[in-house]
């Protein structure tokens, strides 16, 4: 049973959607963010819908290219381009942290160029907090303090109170969301996977663009549908997909149409975002901060490569992976170097690895297809 034409998942093809419009129609606000190091639970508790900025389907970067040199990330340039064309005018707030050099600078550029452009009248409050780059006790205390200050700034900017009870409720909704995503992941790593990599990606993308209580209901439905299905039976190479952000199906389809099935991943629109839950009990804001800070990291965390490698090794066993595709968006130093180490480490373990670079907007398809097909042929 395919999820291909599932109307809920079709939201993944668009930026704004009906759920966001309904949310805003009920006098609630939407806040845009780039990186998963933000505390979603805090925003949701404040009736602020966290919307993860992306540029799915947007293939232009010309306006973004004026403001960002060509050595910068094409994902950020595409999203900036879309923003300059009004694609994110629906946002009521903008939250940035120092996740990577490219996206962090959007804090200034959105303020100077996007929200300050001619004809755009809305006042969009912007918020920034600093995330440590290593995982230590002092680092956690810093992060937690930043989140406390962020809460105060949100309360002041929107004239609201965020109570512990709001936070606890939000934690429950988000924990449930992550539990459901993990359940879907378990259906994905089965011997006969119940869903493809493309379908998993669509679920993940929609999950970042719709209120979580609605998503949770839909995920229940999807899980039921998946469980009823026979699963994917045709013999394909089982691939783990690792690296830079991906929110568009084209590249995933390119891999899956070449004779592979992506049965697991290590992506921020993927496993990295749902493996850990917020602990219940104690100070809810502290617990929210703990989850985000201590969860399995992305390469922006400088001292955590070993834990990321351990996750990869475990997942390779659990999901019976035949080969790993490492990829990075050109100019992404973080994933580029993390992938460099993974490549050496996985090859030492005799795990087939393909390490490729790409652009956010699908290009260079023939070269990529040739490399992917050659890699799949090479896997015994």
């Amino acid at each position, binding site marked *: 049973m395919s999820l291909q034409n599932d109307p809920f998942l079709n939201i993944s093809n668009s930026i704004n959607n009906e759920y966001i419009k309904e949310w805003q129609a009920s006098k609630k606000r939407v806040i845009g963010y780039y990186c998963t190091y933000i505390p979603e639970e805090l925003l949701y508790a404040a009736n602020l819908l966290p919307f993860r900025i992306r540029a799915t389907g947007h293939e232009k970067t010309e306006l973004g290219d004026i403001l960002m040199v060509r050595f910068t990330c094409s994902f950020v340039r595409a999203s900036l381009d879309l923003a300059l064309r009004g694609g994110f005018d629906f946002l009521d707030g903008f939250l940035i942290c120092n996740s990577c050099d490219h996206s962090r*600078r959007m804090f200034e550029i959105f303020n100077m160029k996007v929200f300050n452009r001619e004809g755009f009248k809305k006042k969009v409050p912007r918020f920034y907090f600093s995330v*440590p*780059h*290593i995982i230590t006790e002092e680092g956690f205390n810093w992060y937690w303090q930043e989140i406390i200050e962020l809460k105060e700034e949100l309360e002041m900017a929107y004239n609201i109170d965020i109570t512990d009870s709001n936070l606890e409720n939000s934690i429950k909704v988000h924990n449930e969301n992550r539990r459901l995503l993990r359940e879907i992941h378990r259906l994905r790593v089965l011997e006969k996977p119940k869903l493809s990599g493309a379908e998993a990606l669509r679920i993940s993308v929609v999950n970042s663009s719709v209120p979580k209580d609605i998503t949770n209901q839909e995920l229940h439905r999807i899980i039921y549908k998946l469980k009823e299905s026979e699963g994917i039976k045709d013999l394909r190479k089982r691939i783990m997909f690792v690296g830079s952000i991906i929110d568009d199906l084209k590249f995933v389809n390119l891999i899956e149409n070449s004779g592979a099935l992506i049965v697991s991943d290590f992506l921020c629109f993927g496993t990295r975002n749902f493996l850990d839950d917020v602990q219940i009990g104690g100070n809810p804001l502290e617990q929210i901060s703990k989850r985000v800070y201590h969860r399995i990291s992305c390469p922006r965390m400088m001292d955590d490569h070993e834990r990321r490698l351990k996750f990869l090794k475990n997942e390779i066993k659990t999901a019976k992976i035949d080969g790993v595709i490492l990829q990075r968006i050109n100019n992404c*130093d*973080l994933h*580029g*170097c993390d992938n*460099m*180490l993974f490549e050496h480490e996985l090859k030492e373990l005799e795990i087939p690895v393909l390490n490729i670079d790409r652009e956010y907007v699908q290009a260079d398809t023939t070269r990529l297809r040739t490399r992917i097909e050659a890699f799949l042929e090479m896997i015994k």
Partner: protein
Amino acid sequence: MKEKVIPYKMLLEVISNSYELVWRIVPEHEMQVLKMGLKNLEKCLIDYIQKAEEGLPIIGYHFACPAEFLHCFDCVPICIEGTSYLLAALLPNGSEKYYDLITHWGHPYHTCSSQKGVMGMVLDDLFKFDVITTPTAPCDNTYASYPFFKYKDIPLVITDMPFIREEKSYEFYAEQIKIGLSEIGKIIGQEPDFDKIKKSLEIENQSLKLEFELFELKKATPCPLESMINPMSAAAAVFMAGRPEKLDFYENMLALAKKRYKKKESPIEERIRSIWPYMTIFFDLALCEWLDREIKMSVLLDIFSYNLYDPVDTSSEDKMFNDMARKSMNFPMIKQSIDFYDDFIPEFINTTKEFKADCGIFTSHIGCKQFGSIPQLLREALRDELGIPLLIIDIDVGDKRFASIKTVKDKIRMFANTLL
């Protein structure tokens, strides 16, 4: 023991040869900045190599960790970025061989060459580091590239620098510096001696006074110093930090600038005054001399000379560490990276105004994503506020193959023609 710092020996050889050549060939009153810079660099390197031969531990450090902090140990501090680029500047074939070694190993082509050089040298077994230390700043290249050293079994000590400049950040980072020095001490088997840091910081404070005076003198028209002062200041900040050679260098520079200022003399027949928001190039040091002589363009400031920090208060240990944190977070490039453009742009406009610059030149370095979204904003601000143009050159400041020196010179010449 002798094999622990081979690139420093390469550097010493090339610096000694260049120094001798410049002294022998160039008339006495010319290229004085270069002569003085090379003389002091040579002294520092002789001392470091001697210490390495005595068996002192080799501590690699990121340029954002001011080298004088490491003076609390008996050690040989090796700047990862400074070594890559000084070799790029002075070796006949640059550091390209080492960039290629690490790129072939899998390091992405777009990552900063300042780290590629020493990473390649480690693969080539030219350095034997006992420990490497870095802050988590200023950029993705740092967080991305330094774990390579750990992979190569070199202990890596990381201090976490907050990406926001507030009072609490200085307090946090001061603690990080203490923790970091303590960890390094454990690895190399030495207790950090804070009195030694104090002495080095006092030298730095004296040097800073001279740098401030020099900064003011460079506002004069014509500028009393050669453009070479910019790359030499970068080299001094890295290789001479906390050492008497730095004082000697700036004392001489200041005396020279004062003498010329009084006589209204300049080594440049100055027609264009330029300011470089980022850096000049390292793969061809002769560019500065060419700008002075051929284009009659003075380089008044680059990123290593336009942002100066406050002196460090050494009256108590707490104050000293707090100011050390302050210094680290206001160091060239670090300040701009952890700060917002909201402050950087107006500050830069003011500096440009004070220096009566006619134009700006921005070397848009492939490795530097932190600065990847500033050139156009600066160009617009300079145009709108001061009516002066900014030339943007896509480049790798340490690798001549990305944009050759001919390309760079052609672009600058054409740009200069539009100004005259």
